[in-house]
């Protein structure tokens, strides 16, 4: 289908709220008066059972308006065509962090990604990598949250309130920018298993296994981790019995970003926090692909947090 191919304007039924109860005083939305530039697209959705069992793609063809987000389109498929389509969503405006998925191969939030802006006639939707698939586009977030202590804070004071604060407010506070969506976990080549950077550059040099035998980087890093675990006699807390949570090689960008925020909130807990951040599953596995920062929809730049932690002294590794 070419870009020029346009479908007829949507019927009034599609743009007006269904079965509006009319009342003269109601500001009931009228059907769009101007023809919308809609296009008919194919949405290709990965469907599967838990663990990606029976993974396959289902195609849905539907007409899409210029303002439709990927989430709007998924909602429409679910309500009109297939009530068993499973995906996570809640806020619809990039605050809750539930709707991250791979859209045309890149990690994005479905709620703020406009379909037509993608510019492809087929839009492919797949679940995040690095986290176990529970079904269709839904992944299990527990492996990520296993390494973000629930007691770490989620608000921070505003550094500079140039305007002063209103009466009775001691200091403005902000919710953290990290919406815990997992996009960075999926994009990180070390976490998702696609790391093909030559092992010679693997971090940290002092723990890397002999490099002469050209082993895949992931394997090298794995050896580095087990070696490091032996060195430091540390293991990750395994307070959940489910085993997608078995200690991964690398706890990943989001937990390290959260850890760096917690360090800023609680400088007095520096040693304890750096012990995790610089531990056998921490920053040492980062190979500076920067994929996490590129994937983050919320301006967190987790790679910078990881480098911050790497530069800090303490945590038993000076």
């Amino acid at each position: 289908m070419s870009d020029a191919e346009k479908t007829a304007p949507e019927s009034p039924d599609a743009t007006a709220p269904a079965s509006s109860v009319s009342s003269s005083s109601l500001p009931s939305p009228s059907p769009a008066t101007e023809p919308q530039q809609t296009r008919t697209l194919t949405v290709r959705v990965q469907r599967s059972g838990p663990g990606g069992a029976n993974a396959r793609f289902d195609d849905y063809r539907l007409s899409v308006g210029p303002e439709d987000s990927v989430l709007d389109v998924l909602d429409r498929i679910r309500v009109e065509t297939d009530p068993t389509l499973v995906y996570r969503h809640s806020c619809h405006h990039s605050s809750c962090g539930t709707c991250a998925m791979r859209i045309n191969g890149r990690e994005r939030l479905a709620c703020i990604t406009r379909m037509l802006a993608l510019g492809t006639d087929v839009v492919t939707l797949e679940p995040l990598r690095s986290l176990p698939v529970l079904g269709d586009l839904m992944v299990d977030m527990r492996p990520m949250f296993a390494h973000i202590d629930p007691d770490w804070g989620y608000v921070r004071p505003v550094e500079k309130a140039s305007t002063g604060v209103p009466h009775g407010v001691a200091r403005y506070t902000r919710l953290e920018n990290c919406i815990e969506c997992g996009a960075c976990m999926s994009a990180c080549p070390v976490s998702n298993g696609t790391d093909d950077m030559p092992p010679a550059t693997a971090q940290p040099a002092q723990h890397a296994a002999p490099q002469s035998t050209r082993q895949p980087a992931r394997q090298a890093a794995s050896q580095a981790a087990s070696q490091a675990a032996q060195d430091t006699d540390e293991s990750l807390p395994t307070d959940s019995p489910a085993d997608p949570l078995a200690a991964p090689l690398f706890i990943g960008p989001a937990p390290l970003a959260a850890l760096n925020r917690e360090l800023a909130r609680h400088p007095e807990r520096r040693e304890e926090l750096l012990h995790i951040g610089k531990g056998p599953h921490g920053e040492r596995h980062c190979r500076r692909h920067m994929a996490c920062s590129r994937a983050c929809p919320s301006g967190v730049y987790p790679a910078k947090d990881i480098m911050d932690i790497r530069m800090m002294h303490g945590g038993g590794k000076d």
Partner: protein
Amino acid sequence: MEHIAIIGGGGTAAALAHDLILRGFSVAIYERGEFFSGATGRHHGLLHSGARYAVHDPEAARECIEENMILRRLVPQAMEQNDGLFVALDDEDMAYRQRLKDACAASGIPTRDYTPEQARRLEPGLTETVLAAMQVPDATFDAWRLALPFLATARAGGATIHNFTEVIGIDVQGGAVRGLRLRTLTEDVHGARGREWTAPADMVVNAAGAWAGKVAALAGVHVPIQPGPGVLVAIEGRVTNMVINRMRKASEGDIIVPQRRLSVLGTSMWLTNDPDHLDIPPEHVQRMVRLCSEMVPACADAAIRSAWSAARPLIGNADAARPQEISRTFDCYDHGTRDNVSGLLSIIGGKGMTLRAMAEKTADIICRLTGHDAPCRTRETPLLPARAFYRS
């Protein structure tokens, strides 16, 4: 103790599960989508002071200020301490000012007046034409992270919670509820999807928000629910520190809720019978931006990050002249006395931020009906942090 099945997985259901667990009941929640994918996750995120309702809906205003103070204590990690301003822009707004002040005082909502200069010093983004401003204890909250602690705490206390599980039937025998018929929407390892099953229950609570009418119909009963959708618009950038409200009768496009690095503008309202088909009328989006930019001009120039709709679970009221005047209070209906279906309750209405109070009222009725003398403990019992949800 009795087993209570809750239909719906919004904030109301989560808070009710938490309350019932604390009172000793056995609890299960069934939600057809992701938790908080109905109105609960999608709302404006305004921790109302109650001022918005003080003049025309004092009962809702009192509920808001009381719950505002409780939630600041229970879930501080889900909110920004920014307070709110009501701003007057014209003579009509100025005429409303004294009524609003008096009504706030009557409902126990503290207020503080600012001159235009003081207001603009605090919020330089306000229009130069602001005539007066009044501070109220509003705040911004993260919808997902305010509700999740209730679910996390309930589950840690023994509640079983099922998402992607749709209630497709309510089993009523001999005038009493016996259980639910359910459908699991996810696929199992064998590739089977849509498995149907049943779960017994001593009592069933319909907490399905705007869908409460559809759910009640499964048991052949009626609830006076009126779904009232509205459009919200998130723009890039934070145009103010504080929540900004227009100083006039609750209307459209009169609230700006800044959050993180966004500002959420809203909202409109229409009525529908079908909360599943929510459109996002482009002219509503434009209107929200235009009306909010009267208060803070920068709203007009910011890029739109997202526009979406959500359906309020309003209690139907044929007498209200405008949908905005339908009361935002809540009510719990006992279908035993109303419709001779004993063991079935419906809880509807309210606000996202009155979830705890709605749960308290419903659990009180459940205690009365089951003959248990267990007081509500949710005001003072600490909640687990939101992230604990992923550890239980």
